[in-house]
C-alpha cells in the first residue's frame, strides 16, 4: 500500500535503503549526516539486518568491503571529512568490482570544514584514484532521498561499481513529503559468479586489489574504461523544465540549487520570460546528451552551483561547447535564494 509521511531527508534515505533491500550498514556519525545513521540504527534490527557503528570511518568502509565481497546490499554514509577517510576503501571497492551505496551529505570547506550547505564534494565524489569513476546520484527533494537508494543498488549491482548519493544538508536535514510503498519488492541480484559465498562444491572466487602483472593491469584498465563508456551510454539521467520552446536562458543546477533555480525559473515564466532549467540526476555519468538537447538554442547557459565551478568545469571537459556563466562562483555560507537566482538570470536576458 502506498502512503505519505513527513520525513527528514536523512531518515528518508534510511527508509529508502531498507526498502531497497539493504541489510547491512556500517558507519560513523558526522553532522549533517548523523540522522541517516541514527535512523538506520533504529530500523535495521526490525528488518533483521546488521547495523554497526564503527570506531572510525576507516573501520566502517573496511566493514563495508567485507559485506560487499559477499554480495550483500550494504550502505554507509558520511560527510566530507569522513569521505576523505573513505577514499582508500573506495579504491579497494573499485579494484574488486564490489557493489556498494555510499551517501555523502555535504558540508563546506576543506579539513573539518563548516556546517554550512555546500556542493563542494562534486569532484571527489565522481572520481576515485587510478582513473576510477563512482556513479553519482544527486537528489533534489525528500522523495528522491527515498527513491534513489533503490536506483543506486540497481546500478551498483548492474555494473559492480560504487554508487554515491550526494546531497546537501538542506535536503538532508529538512522534512518533506515522501510517498512510501510497503509492498515494494526490490530486485534480488545474481552474485553467484563472483561473491565470496564459500567455495564448497565449486571453484573458488578470486578477487585481488593488486595488479603487479602488466598484462592483468592493462586488461583491468581497459575493462574499467569500457564499463564507464557503457554507463555513459545507458545510464544518463536528468530532468528538463520549460526547455521545450527554445528558452533564451537555461539554468543548469542540481540538488538544492536546482530546487531554488526551479522556483526562480517558474517565477520568471509567470512574468513571461523564456527561461528553462536542466537538472542532472546522475552527475556521473553526466547526462550530456540531454544537456545538449535542452540548451541547443539557448542564448545563455547559467550554471548555478555552490562551488567554485566543479560541475561547470566537468561539463566543459566533456566537450560542452557553449559559453557558460557560473554563479555565484564560490561556495557561500547560505544557499542563494530564489530572488538572487532570478537576478542572475535577468542579467542575461
Amino acid at each position: 500500500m502506498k502512503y505519505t509521511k513527513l520525513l527528514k531527508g536523512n531518515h528518508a534515505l534510511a527508509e529508502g535503503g531498507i526498502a531497497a533491500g539493504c541489510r547491512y550498514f556500517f558507519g560513523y556519525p558526522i553532522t549533517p549526516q548523523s540522522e541517516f545513521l541514527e535512523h538506520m540504527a533504529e530500523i535495521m534490527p526490525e528488518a533483521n539486518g546488521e547495523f554497526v557503528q564503527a570506531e572510525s570511518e576507516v573501520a566502517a568502509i573496511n566493514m563495508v568491503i567485507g559485506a560487499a565481497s559477499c554480495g550483500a546490499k550494504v550502505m554507509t554514509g558520511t560527510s566530507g571529512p569522513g569521505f576523505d577517510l573513505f577514499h582508500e576503501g573506495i579504491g579497494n571497492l573499485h579494484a574488486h568490482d564490489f557493489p556498494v551505496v555510499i551517501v555523502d551529505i555535504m558540508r563546506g570547506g576543506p579539513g573539518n570544514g563548516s556546517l554550512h550547505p555546500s556542493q563542494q564534494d562534486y569532484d571527489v565524489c565522481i572520481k576515485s584514484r587510478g582513473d576510477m569513476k563512482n556513479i553519482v546520484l544527486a537528489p533534489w527533494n525528500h522523495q528522491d532521498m527515498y527513491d534513489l537508494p533503490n536506483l543506486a543498488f540497481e546500478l551498483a549491482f548492474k555494473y559492480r561499481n560504487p554508487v554515491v548519493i550526494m546531497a546537501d544538508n538542506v535536503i538532508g536535514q529538512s522534512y518533506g513529503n515522501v510517498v512510501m510503498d510497503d509492498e515494494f519488492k526490490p530486485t534480488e541480484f545474481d552474485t553467484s559468479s563472483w561473491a565470496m559465498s564459500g567455495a564448497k562444491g565449486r571453484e573458488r572466487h578470486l578477487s585481488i586489489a593488486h595488479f603487479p602483472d602488466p598484462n592483468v593491469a592493462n586488461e583491468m584498465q581497459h575493462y574499467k574504461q569500457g564499463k564507464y563508456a557503457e554507463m555513459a551510454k545507458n545510464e544518463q539521467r536528468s530532468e528538463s523544465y520549460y526547455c521545450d520552446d527554445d528558452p533564451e536562458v537555461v539554468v543548469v543546477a542540481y540538488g538544492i540549487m536546482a530546487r531554488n533555480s526551479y522556483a526562480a525559473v517558474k517565477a520568471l515564466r509567470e512574468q513571461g520570460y523564456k527561461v528553462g532549467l536542466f537538472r542532472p540526476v546522475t552527475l556521473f555519468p553526466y547526462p550530456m546528451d540531454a544537456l545538449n538537447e535542452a540548451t541547443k538554442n539557448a542564448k545563455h547557459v547559467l550554471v548555478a552551483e555552490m562551488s567554485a565551478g566543479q560541475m561547470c568545469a566537468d561539463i566543459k571537459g566533456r566537450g560542452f561547447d557553449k559559453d557558460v556563466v557560473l554563479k555565484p562562483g564560490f561556495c557561500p555560507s547560505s544557499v542563494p535564494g530564489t530572488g538572487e537566482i532570478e537576478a542572475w538570470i535577468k542579467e542575461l536576458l
Partner: protein
Amino acid sequence: MEYKVLIGGSGGQGVMLLGTMLAIAAINEEREATCLPAYGPEMRGGTANCTVIVSDEPVLTPSPDAVDAVIVMNEPSYSKFVGDVPENGILIVNSSITNNVVEEGVNYEIVKVPCNDIAAELGNVRAANMVAAGAYIQKTGAVSLEACEKTLTDYFGAKKPGVVKSNIDALKAGMDYVK
C-alpha cells in the same frame, strides 16, 4: 495557496515539535509541506528555529526568501527574527516572556498571546508551543484543528492520553484567545 511561517524560540520550548506538527497536519490533509530546522551551533542552547511551508502544491523550496508569518516564543527570538516579518504579515509573540515589543509604526499585525500563562492555567506549561500553534492556525487557516488533533494523537500515542489532551486543550485555548 502557500503558507510560510518562521518559528523561533529557545531549545526546550518545543519549536521543532510545533513546526513538524504543522507540517504533519498538512500531510494529514493530503497537502504538501516542508520544515527546515536551523542547525549548526545554534542547536546547543541559544535560539532554535525552523521554517515551515504548507501548500496545496509541491513546495518549490524549503528555504524561501521570505515568509508571511513569524512566531516568536521568547525575547531573544523576537530580536533576532522581527526583521523577517513582511509588510502586511503576522507576528505572533509569546507575550508571557517577551516584553519589549515595538508596536508603533509597524506595517504588520502583532498578535500578543501569553502562551506560558495560558498553558500553565491548563496545567501543562510545556504546551505553550501548542497555544502559539492554535493562535497561528486561527489567524491564518494554514491547517485545520482536526488535522492538528490527529497529528498530536499519533505523535504522543495512546500511551499518553493525558499529554494528548493537554496539548489539544492548549491548541484550542490558543485559537480561542485570538478569536
